[in-house]
């Protein structure tokens, strides 16, 4: 049963990661693949605060989220002031640099990893409670991002993505929108990181490298960018797939490469056959239906 719980928790955490990453890369159009580093920052900050200073775990997880949020601003503010393209470079540099740093920093476990992270809920209430907590937060995250992107702020992000110069000429500050979305997306990832740390109770820097970046990116792309359920489906499919093939009782020498191939194959398949992902985003932003205004669509109105 623990096996099922662990998979459910991983699914929940990756739903949070993929959805928040879609907010950044899909809805806001910020090209960065360093999302897992903010997951890592949340995990390490929460782990260290609870382990070293005995901070209550819920509070330390929250601090992990805030830490990731603030760290993201360190990357985004200078990078976005120059030009959006620099964000990709700056964020990868930040990700790889921080991982290297963590490997040589023995206070947080170094390359061998950080062990004995305090657990949360599991001892007193059982693993089920933790599963419920993670899945509930996953649902809250998905609903929050849906609310944000379909409201006035979503309209702003859509316009900015379409034409940043015209958007600025309307008196809108594009840089702050980008910094804010990058921060909130990273903060959400940080909270997921804290939840990860206190369940698995072990962290090592290499977990949060480019391999994980590509996994989260694949979830978003395969599921469907800029859709509510796309990243959710992507996270579920990509978490379950490697688990399912382990049931085929293949020798490890085949299983390992097969999982990698399946992953790459999936990306290639979607690139050629269905680039919009499993769920395709509408090319027109509609938003919440304002009161007394339902039932209008672009097609009807222009005929």
């Amino acid at each position: 049963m623990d096996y099922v719980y662990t998979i459910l928790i991983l699914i929940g955490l990756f739903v949070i990661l993929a959805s928040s990453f879609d907010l950044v890369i899909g809805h806001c159009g910020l090209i960065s693949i360093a999302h897992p580093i903010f997951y890592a920052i949340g995990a390490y900050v929460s782990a260290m605060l609870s382990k070293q200073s005995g901070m209550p775990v819920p509070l330390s997880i929250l601090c992990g989220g805030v830490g990731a949020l603030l760290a993201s601003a360190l990357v985004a503010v200078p990078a976005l002031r120059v030009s959006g393209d620099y964000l990709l470079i700056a964020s990868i540099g930040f990700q790889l640099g921080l991982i290297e740093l963590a490997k040589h920093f023995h206070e947080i476990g170094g390359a061998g990893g950080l062990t004995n992270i305090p657990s949360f809920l599991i001892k007193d209430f059982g693993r089920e409670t933790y599963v419920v907590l993670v899945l509930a937060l996953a649902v809250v995250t998905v609903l929050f991002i849906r609310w944000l992107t379909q409201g006035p702020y979503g309209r702003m992000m859509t316009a900015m993505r379409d034409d940043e110069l015209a958007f600025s000429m309307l008196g809108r500050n594009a840089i702050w929108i980008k910094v804010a979305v990058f921060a909130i997306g990273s903060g959400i990832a940080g909270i997921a990181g804290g939840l990860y740390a206190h369940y698995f109770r072990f962290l090592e820097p290499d977990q949060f490298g480019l391999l994980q970046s590509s996994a989260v990116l694949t979830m978003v792309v395969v599921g469907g960018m800029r859709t509510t359920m796309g990243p959710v489906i992507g996270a579920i499919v990509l978490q379950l797939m490697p688990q399912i093939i382990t049931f085929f009782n293949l020798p490890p020498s085949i299983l390992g490469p097969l999982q990698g191939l399946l992953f790459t194959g999936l990306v290639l398949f979607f690139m050629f056959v269905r680039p919009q992902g499993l769920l395709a985003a509408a090319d027109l932003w509609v938003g919440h239906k304002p009161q007394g205004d339902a039932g209008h669509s672009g097609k009807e109105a222009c005929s």
Partner: protein
Amino acid sequence: MSATLEIRGLCKSFGGIVVADSIDLDLVAGRVLGLIGPNGAGKTSLFNLVCGVVKPDAGLVMLDGQSFEGLPTYQRARMGLARTWQNLRLFPSLTVIDNLMLGPRAYSADRLVDVLFRPAQIRAHEAEARDRALDILERTGLSPIARSRVQDISFGQQKLVGVARALMNDARCLLLDEPMAGVEGQTYALIQKAVRDIAASGVAICVVEHNVAFIRDLCDEGVFMFAGKVLARGSVEQLIADPHLTELYFGT
């Protein structure tokens, strides 16, 4: 009569190409000024300099006595500057009304902190923006296509949406870059009426336009630009009648 927008000694060159050569220009509230000149005279560049899209080498621009120096585009817009674009630059992923609803000067939905923690204020701003957009769409005759996507409407209507969107921020000064190019018939008349109405409400307007008929129909005054310089200012009739300017314009 003091000017709404004052341009003083504005200079800009890209490498050896001079697009603005110490330009002095005043735009006056309630009046429409036409910028005339051949391609490459620096008309659109002047707009870009005023908007802060391009940084000047020297000179300054003031709106209602306040200097634009060093301010980014969005702050100039918030101080009351609006413009349309030669190549439209509408937001294709939004409907016509949503294109407009981004525009009010005081509309805090671009601040995430306000969106998260001041929902009541956002709702109020959203309602104001919607009312204002509906009002402007009504006045510009665009109400029937309010919920169409911008790529589904005619080119002339798209131009009109560009003007309507620029009106949303209640600007003191409006720059129109070729509002009539490629527009005919009923929409032509609609844009003309819209521009006259805006001017009548006390906005200073500057129009770049190749259509001389439109300049004549619409502008109170014209300025002839050539190679980044303002060569002459006067009534449109006078400018058109000047054989020297005509020669520069047609390049004979």
